């Protein structure tokens, strides 16, 4: 039971990283992006082929590129860089002229093309069967028992989510973060103040891509295997559900939404007793539950549980105790 709960929370945290990636792209920059889950897959595949040993040269039918036998850290770094570069290329083309729904349709078509290529070209990532055996990073050194390793991985994911949250929170309140949201709200006004909308959006797109690659790395490191069935378009819809429920533009909301959608609704319901009248319908019922909750939020609380914070609603620098002291000292000096 503990093992199962740890597994559920770990998955929810891994998806939370992907949700923050989509939240940077959609919540902050306002890009209606479907490509984010393809980048989770690209990150997962890249990590796997960097970490795995070369494909065996016999007729097992197992074929994939590279097979560099590197350490997990190298694999993760390469996966993140590959996803960031891929986002740069796609973003620099798609962000030029497309917006909103049409951006979504274009990126959706790009996901389907990528999926077809990876499924058909078995020499890339072993086609439909996928890659496997890339799991349990660091355990060759740590030598933990399965249940202890499971908890170790949960803590690792927790630390990464915490780190990502801290980084994104810094970016959120940075001048760049403010400019990005200004561009989302009113492109012309932001451009009038000297912000290049295209460059700002592209930066956010690349940042989101890097985070998606990180999430893919964690996913494949945890489950050990990855194949095209693991990234159907439905997964992106689930990420959108997580963000809308949690709070579009709010990173705490993205994490909370992932815990609700992936932890509670999709994985947590495994603990419920099965419905005898509808055998084998659990997966479909879970998807329906996510859809209905998402509809309810879109209807009655479109800003989500934790809405995006506004600049005017948070304590500014002048309310900071240190800044107040500095001002007080400066004021005294001035009056003397």
């Amino acid at each position: 039971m503990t093992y199962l709960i740890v597994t559920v929370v770990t998955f929810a945290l891994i998806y939370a990283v992907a949700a923050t990636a989509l939240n940077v792209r959609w919540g902050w920059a306002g890009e209606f992006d479907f490509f984010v889950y393809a980048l989770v897959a690209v990150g997962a595949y890249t990590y796997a082929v960097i970490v795995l040993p070369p494909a065996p040269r016999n007729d097992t039918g197992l074929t994939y590129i590279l097979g560099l036998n590197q350490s997990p850290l190298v694999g993760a770094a390469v996966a993140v860089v590959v996803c960031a570069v891929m986002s740069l290329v796609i973003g620099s083309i798609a962000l030029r002229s497309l917006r909103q729904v049409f951006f979504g349709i274009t990126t959706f078509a790009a996901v389907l093309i990528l999926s077809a290529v990876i499924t058909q070209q078995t020499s890339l990532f072993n086609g439909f069967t996928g890659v496997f055996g890339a799991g349990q990073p660091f355990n060759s050194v740590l030598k933990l028992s399965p249940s202890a390793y499971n908890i170790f991985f949960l803590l690792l994911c927790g630390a990464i989510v915490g780190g990502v949250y801290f980084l994104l929170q810094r970016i959120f309140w940075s001048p760049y973060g403010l400019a990005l949201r200004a561009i989302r709200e009113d492109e012309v006004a932001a451009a009038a103040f000297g912000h290049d909308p295209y460059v700002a959006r592209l930066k956010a797109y690349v940042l989101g891509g890097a985070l998606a690659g990180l999430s893919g790395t964690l996913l494949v490191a945890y489950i050990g295997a990855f194949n095209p069935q693991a990234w159907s378009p439905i997964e992106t819809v689930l990420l959108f559900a997580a963000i809308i429920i949690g709070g579009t533009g709010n990173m705490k909301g993205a994490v909370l939404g992932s815990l609700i959608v992936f932890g509670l609704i999709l994985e947590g319901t495994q603990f419920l007793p099965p419905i005898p009248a509808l055998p084998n319908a659990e997966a479909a019922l879970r998807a329906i539950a996510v859809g209905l909750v998402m509809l309810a939020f879109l209807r009655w609380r479109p800003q989500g549980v934790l809405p995006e914070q506004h600049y005017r609603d948070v304590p500014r620098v002048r309310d900071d105790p240190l800044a107040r002291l500095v001002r007080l000292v400066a004021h005294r000096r001035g009056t003397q």
Partner: protein
Amino acid sequence: MTVLLHSVGFGLVAAAIIALGSVAFSLQFSVTTTPNFAHGDILTIGAYAALGAQTLTHNIAAEVIAAVVAGGLAASILNLALMEPFLKLRAPRISIFLVTVVFGLLAQNIILIVFGGSPATFQLPTSGLIHVGPFLWTNIDIETMISAVVILGSLHVLLRYTKFGKSLRAVSDNPELARVTGVPYRRVVRITWLLDGMMAGFAGFILAAYVGGLTPTLGFSYLVVIFAASVVGGLGRPYGTALGALVIGVAMQVASAYVAPDYSESVAFGLLIVALLIRPQGIFRAEIWNFAE
């Protein structure tokens, strides 16, 4: 040369199916200006309704009616239960698009619960291949193309020569002006959704017969092909869309003969991306359409 001609022949059949699906999609878009992401799932609903009718009776007319009614019902439910309340709330367009995404998710999974996920076979009586000029078709292929021409022709008459058609064109040109000048705006939108669903349901029936079987994701996987035809031809333009369907259908079949069958859909998706990037207003459209909205 024979290979090319044969694949063009198959392309014409594919184009007929795509045209039925995408003209309905485009017509709906012209009135509501929100693409319906659940459009493919309405095709699936039509196909499963036809399958249900086939298990009861082997009458093709009954199957067609079941598909058309189910499609029209599904599209009307989407409009009345979800689109109208959200439009009344003045929800942003992206939320409305997401609502159609969720409707598709719900429809797919309800079908999964009712009919199960395993592929079902769906076949109509066929005569085998017949040589028609340079092309090679079955009687179903020929009937598919005839039905597409008849349906699109009737739609043309409806749009061009009836009062409803005039109101629909008025709404699609300028909704506010149409409303002010007394066009029954809401009724036009509702009838358009009904028509869209009926055509989509029929397209689903034809698609299932063409593929020879159906799964809960039959229509969803065809959705981007439909998008491609609509965008290449000019989204919101039923006539351009019919030509776009011709381009996409023939391109897909020629590609599957010369490149690889598995990449035929990727060719359509590639054309979609190129069309959106280079000429988002469509090949057959002259006016500027503001896509930055």
